[in-house]
């Protein structure tokens, strides 16, 4: 082998097939509103919007968990921060989404910086517990906002304007916007993980001691990833508030954060489509099972254990193996 042939590092396994899978998923999501015209109606599109928003959050969490090795148990707090930023601004008469989004992202970034500066000094189980604690702080803080519905939540009476238009007041507008945000997040996080920054982050997951001996302040890279993931989750929160026209503290509950972790692990951590597939699968299964029985978690729990046992690397790992068997 000649030296020149190494100018490009080995590409990740099956980049093409990952791209095809993502393309199929996005195309299917784009077709859902059309299918809904014939069957499923508003119920189906609403389910898809919820699934897509959670997929955005799951992808942002995978940047931390899968690529950074930072298991945050408080990630839903950032969704709640974004959602409340939107809810409060819309209640107070600020309708323009181009103002709401930067405020929501800014609030999430500030909270991520402040809480992350503490969290990033710990690791392992302590990290999980501290992110959980900060998440609960947000949950209770939002529940104490008496003028904005307190524990009962806040109903939003008007949809945001999009550059003065009523685009986000229509179901189609919201659907298309959420889908674009999902594709954008998916592409962005992939670019980040392949960048110089992402390389340092991924290296620090494997061996932080070596990475700091190379001259990188692991703390700063992790904190930056925490801020980025928090801002993406806040965008998802704004979309959630827009879609549901209602926000409540439960958006930021620890159960939600736990569900997000399950989605990422279920789909396959640090893979191109794992978090995306995990989130969509989670929502569909949750919907199907909860329509059958109230105690759907009794079925879902064992199902998760089976997947954890038999599909290491999550659903994406399972897909890869099925494909591998065929070729």
């Amino acid at each position, binding site marked *: 082998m000649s030296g020149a042939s190494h100018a490009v*590092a*080995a590409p990740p396994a099956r980049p093409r097939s990952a791209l095809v899978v993502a393309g199929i998923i996005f195309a299917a999501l784009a077709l859902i509103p059309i299918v809904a015209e014939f069957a499923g109606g508003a119920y189906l599109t609403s389910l898809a919007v919820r699934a897509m928003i959670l997929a955005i959050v799951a992808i942002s969490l995978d940047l931390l968990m899968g690529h950074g090795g930072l298991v945050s148990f408080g990630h839903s707090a950032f969704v709640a921060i974004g959602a409340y930023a939107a809810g409060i601004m819309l209640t107070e008469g600020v309708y323009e989404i181009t103002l709401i989004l930067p405020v929501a992202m800014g609030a999430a970034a500030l909270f991520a910086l402040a809480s992350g500066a503490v969290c990033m000094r710990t690791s392992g189980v302590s990290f999980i517990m501290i992110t959980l604690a900060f998440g609960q702080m947000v949950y209770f803080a939002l529940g104490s906002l008496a003028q904005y519905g307190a524990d009962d939540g806040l109903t939003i009476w008007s949809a945001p304007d999009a550059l003065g238009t009523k685009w986000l007041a229509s179901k189609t507008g919201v659907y298309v916007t959420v889908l674009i945000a999902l594709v954008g997040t998916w592409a962005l996080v992939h670019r980040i993980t392949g960048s*110089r*920054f*992402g390389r340092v982050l991924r290296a620090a997951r*494997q*061996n932080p*001691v070596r990475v700091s*001996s190379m001259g990188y302040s692991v703390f700063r890279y992790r904190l930056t990833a925490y801020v980025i993931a928090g801002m993406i989750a806040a965008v998802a929160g704004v979309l959630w508030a827009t879609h549901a026209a209602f926000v409540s503290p439960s958006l930021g509950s620890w159960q939600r954060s736990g569900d997000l972790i399950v989605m990422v692990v279920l789909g396959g951590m640090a893979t191109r489509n794992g978090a995306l597939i995990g989130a969509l699968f989670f929502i569909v299964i949750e919907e199907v099972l909860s329509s059958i029985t109230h105690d759907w978690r009794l079925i879902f729990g064992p199902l998760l254990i089976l997947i954890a046992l038999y599909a290491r690397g999550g659903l994406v790992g399972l897909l890869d193996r099925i494909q591998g068997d065929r070729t």
Partner: protein
Amino acid sequence: MTGAVLELRGLHKAFGALVVTDGIDLDLHRGECHALIGPNGAGKTTLINQISGALQPDAGRISFEGRDVTDLSVADRAVAGLGRSFQITSILPDFTVLENVALAAQRRDGSSFRFLGRAARETRLNDAAMEALGQLGLETRADVVAGALSYGEKRLLELAIAIAGQPHVLLLDEPMAGMGRAESESLTATLLGIKKRYPILLIEHDMEAVFQLADRVSVLVAGAIVASGTPDEVRTDPQARAAYLGDDHTGDAA
């Protein structure tokens, strides 16, 4: 000031009642390979850890290129030019060999707070990495996942990472640890080349390698330097012989 790149003055470190660094003064000069030898548990790795910043000394100062670095973090000292290798192999097992080394090169090549460009396609980083790999004869292994390398290859990668960071000083903690005769001999030859470009503080149990590479040898016993001089002086120093070369030199390569 002397011509020393690295100066340790009055370094002390204890783990509870166990004194591992007992008033160490040590210099590393430009163009010099200074070997630090001593029995297992003498405190050699602990000393390297204090120089690199992984451990904080209880007392004493460390100055590097005329600047006091005692209070700097590991990362800041590495940026200042202190490169190190680890006695227990410390690589990035999920990255390819090339990416391990390219990451070290990336540190020297502008900001790493770049979020969108594809790092794996940066030819300047990959070329720098290939060059470091070439120096250690690892260039044909560039695309292999580092975790899948043989033990000896991992030891070489360890060094390639240290070199790719273009340090001003190399701190090498037993680069030959666990290697066979032939492997250590070839690595000694490689280090003779590397030595021309970097001052090296070398910890090594392999005496043949030490006497070939070192310009100066210091003997560390129970946290204190008991003898220091040219390889020939140390070879004949009675204290050094008693403490290390004679009694303890029973071929422990751990």
